[in-house]
């Protein structure tokens, strides 16, 4: 059997509203459940009385259907995912670019002691990785980073208002 927190979490997960509205609903449902507990009801009895998380969420979704709330919910969700993906890809691209430039531009290795080299290894470059390519890679990473930051900023600005 789920506890109070799990019950509230499952309700909120299924409600298609903005994050700010979810926070409002969280406090109200929490107050509601605690009031019922004060009246002597157990969490099992409360769940039976109120209904499954899906049923409670469906009632909210019904009330918010055909309103802008649904639109805002999907916009926020898209911004959150896009922001996370763009920021991750930009960091990954930067790391790959740096590693690529470090290893692929280096073609001579010297192994030896202080008295002189004992072994010189010359390797062929698997692909040509010029400083120009390195710069282009960094530009792409920066563009992805800027778009990622823009998504995050718009998301938080929207979260504050709606």
């Amino acid at each position: 059997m789920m506890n109070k927190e799990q019950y509230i979490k499952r309700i909120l997960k299924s409600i298609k509203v903005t994050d700010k509205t979810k926070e409002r609903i969280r406090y109200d449902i929490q107050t509601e459940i605690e009031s019922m507990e004060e009246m002597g009801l157990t969490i099992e009895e409360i769940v039976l009385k109120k209904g499954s998380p899906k049923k409670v969420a469906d009632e909210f979704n019904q009330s918010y259907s055909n309103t802008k709330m649904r639109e805002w919910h999907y916009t926020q969700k898209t911004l959150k995912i896009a922001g996370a993906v763009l920021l991750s890809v930009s960091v990954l691209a930067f790391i790959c670019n740096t590693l690529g430039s470090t290893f692929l531009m280096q073609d001579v290795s010297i192994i030896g002691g202080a008295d002189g080299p004992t072994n010189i290894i010359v390797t062929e470059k698997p692909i040509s990785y010029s400083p120009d390519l390195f710069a282009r890679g960094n530009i792409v990473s920066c563009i992805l980073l800027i778009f990622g930051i823009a998504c995050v900023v718009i998301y938080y600005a929207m979260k504050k208002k709606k």
Partner: protein
Amino acid sequence: MLNMMKGATDLDFKYEQQFKKGALEMMLLSIISRKRTYGYEIILNLNNAGEPLFQNIKEGTLYPVLYRLEDSGLVISELSTSENSGRAKKYYKITDLGTSTLQEMKGFWQSYKNCIDKLMES
């Protein structure tokens, strides 16, 4: 005088448009105007009133209306510690704007009701 009449007509028109969905808003404002209260207490109030129309009201219907009232500045919510349990609860209380809007709504409701009654009787 003409402006006053126009103002009254505009107001009536506004309420007429919103009346169906506004009935619950008026009910909630009226309950909250009596004392600071929280969602579950409002549900119990409506359920125990014995009126079938509002007897089975659920949180999924109630809270979106409360949020609309709050966004319009008619009520405010606050987290406050309960006297009985010491736990923090979310309470709603009416604002000055809410009180005056409730009076306007009641006035409109009365004239609307009188008009319907008169038409039904004739």
